[in-house]
Structure formats: C-alpha cells, structure tokens
C-alpha cells in the first residue's frame, strides 16, 4: 500500500502505542480518591504537563476532549454563549471560509439556531486571511464581536495562516481568537503562548497519537459555556471520565511530534517537493493548490486540481493500484461535493471537481512518491476519458 493520506490520519508512533498498551491494563478513574484513582490522576496530570510543554502552553490551559471536533465545538459554541451572556450585543462571529467543518458547521449552527451574525473573512487565492482584514472587520463594531476563528493551517490545501499577526489584531480589541491547529501540530512550529491566541484545538490521531482524544488549549481568562454537562472533570467546562490511556499516549505523541518538528519539516518537505515535481512532470497542466511557496504551506501537503477529471474517478483508479489519497473535499451523503476550501480561493467550480490531496507523514518513503509518479499520468488520462458526469 502507498499511503498518501496522512492528513486524514497518520500511523501511531511506536512510543505512543507502547504507552497506550501499558496504560490500558491499569485500572483507575482519575476522579477517584483511592490509590488507583490517584495513580490515574497522576498519569493524566503528567500528560497534561507534557502536552502543555509540547504546545508552549501552561498545564492549566489544557482541556482534554474527545478530539479536534469536540475542541472546536467547545471553543466556538462555548465562547459564543459565554461572551453573549456577558454582553447580549455580542452576536457577531468572524471566521475564515476555509475552516474545517468542525468550525465551519459549528459557526453556521450558531447562525441558524443562536442568532449569530456570521461574517466570513476574505481570503486570497491561496486561502490566506489578511490580518488587516480581520482588524477591519472587528473595527467596524468591536463591541458586538463574540469571537473570531481562523485555523492554523488548512487541512486540504495546506496553507499556513499568519497566526500571530491575526491574534495580535484580535487582541487589540480584546476579541477572543480560536485557532484549529489540528493539522499544524508536528508540521510547523506551534507555540500557543507565543502566538497570542485565546484558544486552540489539537487532535491525537493526526499527530501520531490515538483516535478519540484531543485537547482545547484555552487561556485561563476564558470560561466557555460547557457543551457536555456532568462531573465537570476538565475545568468545569468539559465533563466525562477521562480516557487515561489515550491521554497519556497522546501526550507522548505530541511531545515527539513537537520535538521532531524541524526534522519532519525538512525531510518530509523534501519528499513533498519531489512529489510535486513528479506530478507536474507527469501531468503538466495539473494545478497546484495552496501556496506555491513551500514556506507558506504544510511540509507534508500537496494538493492538485486536474482539469477535466472527476476527483472521485482519480481516487478510484489510484485506489485500484494500491495508492491511497483523498479528494480533500467533504462528502455530503457520500456524494463528493466541490470543496468549500477550493471554491473559497476563487477556483473555477469545474476545476474544483477534479482535486486530489496527497498528504505525507512520518512513514512516507521515496518509493511512495515513485509509485505515485508512475501511476498518476495514466490515471489522469483515463479519468479524463470518463469526463465530468
């Protein structure tokens, strides 16, 4: 198998697998007062410290969740509710149109059900938000903004946002800025403290950790309304018995991902550059999506539009040859739709139907790139003959 879909999920790091296995055989609810509970609690708190250190955050800023989606929902909805409760005028939500659905749909839900007025921030042709655009949007009426949300790096086209400058713009008006950093962790330097962000979502399985665990990194001054009510285990904003093994393994993975980030960017980035060259050589009219400058995109991401092709057809043809990638777009009822990200960058909707995302990871090899280089030309030719249905 040639696995080129690490942005969907990447294999767990061996160290994380080991940690998970060791923790799975132990008993203990981290909320219990007895010895088993205390030991579980200690494991969780050590993981919290480890994760915080990896993310440039303080341990008290880490709220463990069931994953990136929950962290995004907690930040967007929870902050909206809390900010509006403090001042009913705050109903304006500013968000980039290239957000992951975990943010995009949460924002849209607030508009549909909670009276939020949504302003989608303008993006350029690579999907990047200009900090001055955010500044101007807030400045139109700083008093009515509930929150802003811009992701760290895009999951489809890999574009990295000017996070610190965006955070600075929001901070000028004391507007909380939430950032989905799910794709960024391990690929680009993620330092919550230095960024100036108010909130940031990360996920375990995108960074070599287990599925079903993530965290919302949340400034101490913020108290979003809870989504999940119950025992109040996590700072009273998130209830539910803590998944001790997953949390411990996540912290191990995040630690390794952060420590190895520079090397990952260098080595995987070189592979990615080779992949881009190979695809361009095989399909000269393929259109690279996202920032053509490698410094402005995730090192593991390559995204192409293939004119005259259905992305689904390409996926099927490559899959039949054991090459696994993604169209990069979300499914609606199983039917591939043109990606909202690609459309937001102003791409021709017809071109947007023929996109593929190749995402590399820590297990990728030159052989993977060579296999794709060989297969992509004939696959594109064949998909073109099938046309756009």
């Amino acid at each position, binding site marked *: 198998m040639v696995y080129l879909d690490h942005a969907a999920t990447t294999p767990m790091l061996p160290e994380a697998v080991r940690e998970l296995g060791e923790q799975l055989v132990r008993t203990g609810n981290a909320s219990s007062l007895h010895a088993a509970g205390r030991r579980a609690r200690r494991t969780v708190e050590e993981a919290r410290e480890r994760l915080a250190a990896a993310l440039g955050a303080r341990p008290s800023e880490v709220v463990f969740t069931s994953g990136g989606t929950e962290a995004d929902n907690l930040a967007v909805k929870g902050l909206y509710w809390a900010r509006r409760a403090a001042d009913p005028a705050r109903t304006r939500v500013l968000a980039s149109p290239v957000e992951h659905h975990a943010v995009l749909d949460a924002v849209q839900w607030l508009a549909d059900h909670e009276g939020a007025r949504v302003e989608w921030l303008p993006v350029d042709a690579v999907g990047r938000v200009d900090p001055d655009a955010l500044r101007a949007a807030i400045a139109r009426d700083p008093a009515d903004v509930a929150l802003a949300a811009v992701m760290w790096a895009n999951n489809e086209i890999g574009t990295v946002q000017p996070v610190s400058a965006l955070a600075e713009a929001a901070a000028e008006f004391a507007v909380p800025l939430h950032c989905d950093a799910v794709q960024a962790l391990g690929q680009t330097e993620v330092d919550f403290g230095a960024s100036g962000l108010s909130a940031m979502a990360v996920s375990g399985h995108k960074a070599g950790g287990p599925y079903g665990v993530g965290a919302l990194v949340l400034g101490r001054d913020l108290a979003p309304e809870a989504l999940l009510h119950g025992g109040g285990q996590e700072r009273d904003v998130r209830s539910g018995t803590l998944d001790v093994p997953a949390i411990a393994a996540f912290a191990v993975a995040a630690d390794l991902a952060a420590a190895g980030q520079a090397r990952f960017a260098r080595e995987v980035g070189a592979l990615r550059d080779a992949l881009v060259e190979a695809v361009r050589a095989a399909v000269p009219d393929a259109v690279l999506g996202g920032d053509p400058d490698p410094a402005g995109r995730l090192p593991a991401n390559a995204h192409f539009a293939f004119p005259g092709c259905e992305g689904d057809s390409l996926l099927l043809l490559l899959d039949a040859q054991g090459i696994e990638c993604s169209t990069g777009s979300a499914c609606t009822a199983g039917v591939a739709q043109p990606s909202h990200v690609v459309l937001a960058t102003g791409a021709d909707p017809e071109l947007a139907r023929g996109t593929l995302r190749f995402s590399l990871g820590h297990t990728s090899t030159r052989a993977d790139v060579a296999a794709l280089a060989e297969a992509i030309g004939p696959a594109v030719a*064949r*998909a073109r003959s099938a046309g756009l249905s």
Partner: protein
Amino acid sequence: MTDDTAPHPRRLRVLAAMSGGVDSAVAAARAAEAGHDVTGVHLALSANPQSFRTGARGCCTLEDSRDARRAADVIGIPFYVWDLAERFRADVVEDFVAEYEAGRTPNPCLRCNEKIKFAALLDKALALGFDAVCTGHYATVVRRADGSRELHRASDLAKDQSYVLGVLDERQLAHAMFPLGDSRATKEEVRAEAQRRGLAVARKPDSHDICFIADGDTQGFLAGRLGRAEGDIVDEDGRKLGTHEGAYGFTVGQRKGLRLGRPAPDGKPRYVLDISPVDNRVTVGPADALDVSALTAVRPRWCGTPPAGAGSYTAQLRAHGAETPVTAELVDGELRVAFHRPVRGVAPGQAVVLYDGSRVVGSATIATTRRAERVES
C-alpha cells in the same frame, strides 16, 4: 452457447451497482467470489438525498447508501457513491412526468436501466477501465459461439426481470452481468445466502414502488408536478359521467378510483378505456371494450439484429404480466404487433417486449392500440 455467468476464463473488472438491497449485494458477492475484480458503486439519484424517503425501502436514501457500503465492506470490495442525480432527473423523472402528462403510463425502471445503469453508469465504467456492470436483476445473458450476446428470461420465471431489461441493445448486454439470473434460488434462499455471507441487508424489505416518489403516492407526486386540471369522465358515447382532477392520474385498464357514484346501467364495473390529454378527457366503459387486437409501438430497441419481415413471437406488455402470442413486424421504424387472441388493458407508454422462447428479441414503447371487434352476445 455458453453461460455468461459461469466462471470466466479471465478475471474481469466489474463495477457492481449496489442499491443497498439484498439482491444487488448478493450479486456483487457472487461476482467477487467468481474471481472477478469487483468495485461497488451506489448511485445517488436524488439531488437532495435527505429529502427522499426515510424508510428502508426504495433506492435513494442515505440509509440505503450506508447499507450498500456496509455490504461492500463485508464482501471486501472498494465502494464509491456516484452522483448521477442530474442525469436521473433529466432522463427518468422528467420523462416520467412528461409521459403521464401525455396520457401514457411509463415504466421508470425500464427507462433507468436504459439511460442510467446501462448508459450513464456503463459508459463511465468502461471509460474508467471496467469490463462490465453487474446488477442484481434476475435475467440471463447468454454468449453465443460467435461471441454475440442474448438476453434470456431468468431460470426462475417467477422472479424473471428480463422485461425491464428488454431495452438493452447488444453492446449494453455485452457489458452486463446478472449473477442472480441463473439462480434457481427462491427469494428466501437469496436472503439465506446473504445471511450466510454476513450481509446485514439479508432481512431488509424489498423495494416495490417508484424510488423517486417518497411516500409511494404517485398521484400526489404527479399532482404536485402537473397541478390540478379538472376534466370530464365520459362514456363511450361521450356522455359525461363525472369529473376528475387531472387526466394524468389514470391508466388504461384502471378500475378503482373513478368515483363515478352512479353504477353503469348494466351494473357491470367500468374501466378506463382512453385518456385524452388534449381535451383532458377520460373515457370509461365495460371490460370487453378494453380488448385489444393490435398495437403500434415506437422507439424499438433490439437485442441483436432487428428481425426482417413479420415474425411470430410472444409478447409481454407489463412487468410481471403474462406473455401472449403475436405476429410482429417492423414497418418504417415502427413496431406493429398483432395479437393472436385479444388482450385486455394495454396501456400506452408501457413497453412491449418480444420473446422468442426465453430469448428477448427486443422492445418498443406502446403508442396506439386497436380495439378488438366486439363479439355481441
């Protein structure tokens, strides 16, 4: 002749159309078990799948798509959803509405096989390098020694679906695979086979009605599309017997739902004899006035070479209908069919499918009928 569903000398790349029902799931499983390289595809036929029926029946829901995916996962084959909603709307749904509007009674399943499954889907499959499209239909493709293909009734006549495949030409047949066609298994045995294969759809109810009409209410669907148009219900002499809310709501041969109030003078039931969209008039009369001695049919499609001159065949006039002996001839592109014995209730818009023994010869869409001379008693 060799049986097309017997193990192939070579491994074919097969695209299995999977509706989410039990038949297409077992068909895909059999094709995979026969050694073919099978990929499953569910056709999304509604532009807005969530608005369609929510029950287990039919072929268009999200649930059906999930059922198909689950079956593909169990069989161990790749699975995709292809969006053919626009083609389906244009070629099947709009055709359905237009046919009713013109006073005819269309068969959308036949149209879907002709225009979607063995045209839009097949063409895309062939372009992508597949050799055949596999479905769960009960019919048999036979390959003759010269390489040509014939479509035959299924071994089990009770389940035979060759009628709705009668529109396929030889090129389409050459790329069609019906793994259930030579099965003598009863429906219950197919379900048992699904169970044995671990397919969760084993107990799923069959779909019977029209997949794009959410609640099975064809009249309501047509009324929504065509609007109410009150008109007269008259007898054979043109005397008004009642009113209707749209001539499109009737089918030749229909007895129920006329709401005439007064019984016929002779006390016998009355049937729809004719639908005239031009003056929005529905003519009713006694059962024997439904007897037809001949028909003409348009848009003929042949499974192989069109027959020259007049020939003797049997004809089937509706899905699950009985067959009847006929003499048929192609004249100026129009099929003329003479019944050896009068037949009752032939609805324009339905297909006439001609058979030679178990072999499908071809089909055409019924345009006009000639009433049999009434035998005075």
